[in-house]
């Protein structure tokens, strides 16, 4: 057993344990770690935004290289602060509108291609199939997509045959969720294992994973 002598390992270990105390109940130790985490994360985020976004994308081109085109984004950025002045607070909607407009224009064709065309293409049955297994797989996918689409059809009440089909659709959705749940829970466990390895290995020196 070789307990770490690095003070930063001790800080990390104590903070990890402080966060874990929430498993018992809310307490001052957790409160301290939570506030520290929130504060440090916000401060860190601010510095990252300044150096990775504000400085190279606005300050450098506008104030150092004097590229006057950058006055436009600068102006729109400043408008966010109009929220603080009630008389001009409506101006805050301008950059938001610009952002939404550009975002929609760029993403709509891409979403159509990726989420509608490609999915439909993969779902349509294409005969002949090389073997029965591939056909069954394609048929399950075809039925699953159709029933799920009917579940998400909001213009007709889920009654009678439509109700039955949509119930089959929700079964497909839940099977998908189950698989996704299991997969992600495994990933979360690996995060927990990582933390425990840190406490036992790097901090206490009891167990070292090669």
């Amino acid at each position, binding site marked *: 057993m070789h307990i770490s002598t690095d003070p930063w390992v001790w800080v990390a270990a104590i903070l990890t344990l402080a966060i874990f105390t929430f498993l018992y109940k809310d307490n001052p130790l957790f409160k301290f770690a*939570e506030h520290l985490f*929130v504060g440090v994360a*916000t401060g860190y985020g601010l510095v990252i935004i300044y150096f990775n976004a504000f400085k190279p994308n606005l300050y450098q081109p506008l104030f150092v290289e004097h590229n006057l085109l950058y006055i436009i984004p600068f102006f729109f950025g400043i408008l966010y602060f109009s*929220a603080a002045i009630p008389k001009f*607070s409506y101006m805050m909607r301008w950059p938001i509108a610009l952002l939404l407009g550009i975002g929609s224009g760029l993403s709509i064709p891409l979403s159509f291609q990726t989420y509608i*065309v490609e999915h439909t*293409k993969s779902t349509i049955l294409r005969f002949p199939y090389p073997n029965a297994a591939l056909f069954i797989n394609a048929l399950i996918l075809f039925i699953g997509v159709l029933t799920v689409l009917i579940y*998400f*059809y909001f213009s007709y*009440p889920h009654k009678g045959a439509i109700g039955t089909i949509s119930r089959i659709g929700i079964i497909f959705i839940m099977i998908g969720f189950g698989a996704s749940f299991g997969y992600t829970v495994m990933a979360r466990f690996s995060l927990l294992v990582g933390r425990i390895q840190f406490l036992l290995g790097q901090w206490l020196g009891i167990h070292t994973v090669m």
Partner: protein
Amino acid sequence: MIWIYLIITLLGNAPPRVFDVPNDGGNALRVEWQLPPDSLGKVDSMLILRKTLPEGKVDTVAKAFTNHPEFVDEGVNYKKAYRYSILYFIGPVQIQSKWSSPAKPIASWIDTRKIPLFILMILYTTILLVYIFTARKGRELYLRPIAGLEAVDEAVGRATEMGRPIVYIPGLSTISDVATIAALNILAHITKKAGEYETKIIVPVRNPVVYTIAREVVKEAYYTIGRPDLFDPGQVYFATDSQFGYAAHVSALMAREKSATNFFMGMFWAESLILAETGASTGAIQVAGTDAVTQLPFFVVTCDYTLIGEELYAASAYLSKEPLLTASIKGQDQMKLLIMVAMILLSLLSVFGVNITLGLF
């Protein structure tokens, strides 16, 4: 060996052929060359040389291989012309082909491959516009009831009965995310409901822009029900930009405030389970809604009601009674119907050996 040298020398003199790559922004040229089949494995390596006109600057653009006599040069500009030559290495000998005729990349105004997609989008937009105009004329558009929505009023009522606050999380994404917009619409409805019963609603926000909008939404909701006095500037606040910092804060908030009801609406990532599990452990009734497919399983297991995917948008339209939103849902429904019909028809045709793609599928 001499024979190979001879053939390469003869072919080497033949310049490569250069073609424009269609449907691009004029930034690519395709270079093709030919080698006799016997030379495969005997030419050690080849270099593609490019001469930019009018400067005459020569660059080596790529190393080529004999088994793939084609190369797409994506480092060109439609304002300039280019000539290409191939440099062959056979043992110690180097042979260079003649320079090709000048070729200029053409910038295409229209990507013809995307015309079917464009038609599909026009069709969708037309359907959408028809519904929007119908809704604006005042005709009521039917949307089926959504189970999770009925739970919203029940959840607000429970918080009122218990005298405890409601915690509302409008997702962790930015305002450009549709789920965030839907979450803000639902927030307006819930704030009005909570305001009618004077139940406190707490809205911690991760994104600064979403924070300013959420604040306005809550304020306006109180004004709408004639209770501007209920608005407390501290009830909607920016927590932190950090994903897990935010998760830690909200978890602690739910435990400390002992919220009776928690709403998780909008876009979520890996923090979803931390938030919803903590909320469930405090005994709160929880209603979630997200279009994040990977996070939905966690909400389904930890929340009392979950709005799955598009149900979130439908809920937003349903609650806001906004004609534009209701019409969008109707338009999407008709598009879904169209896709289902297309899938069934194209699959049936395929059974009879007719495989139609419509340039899309």
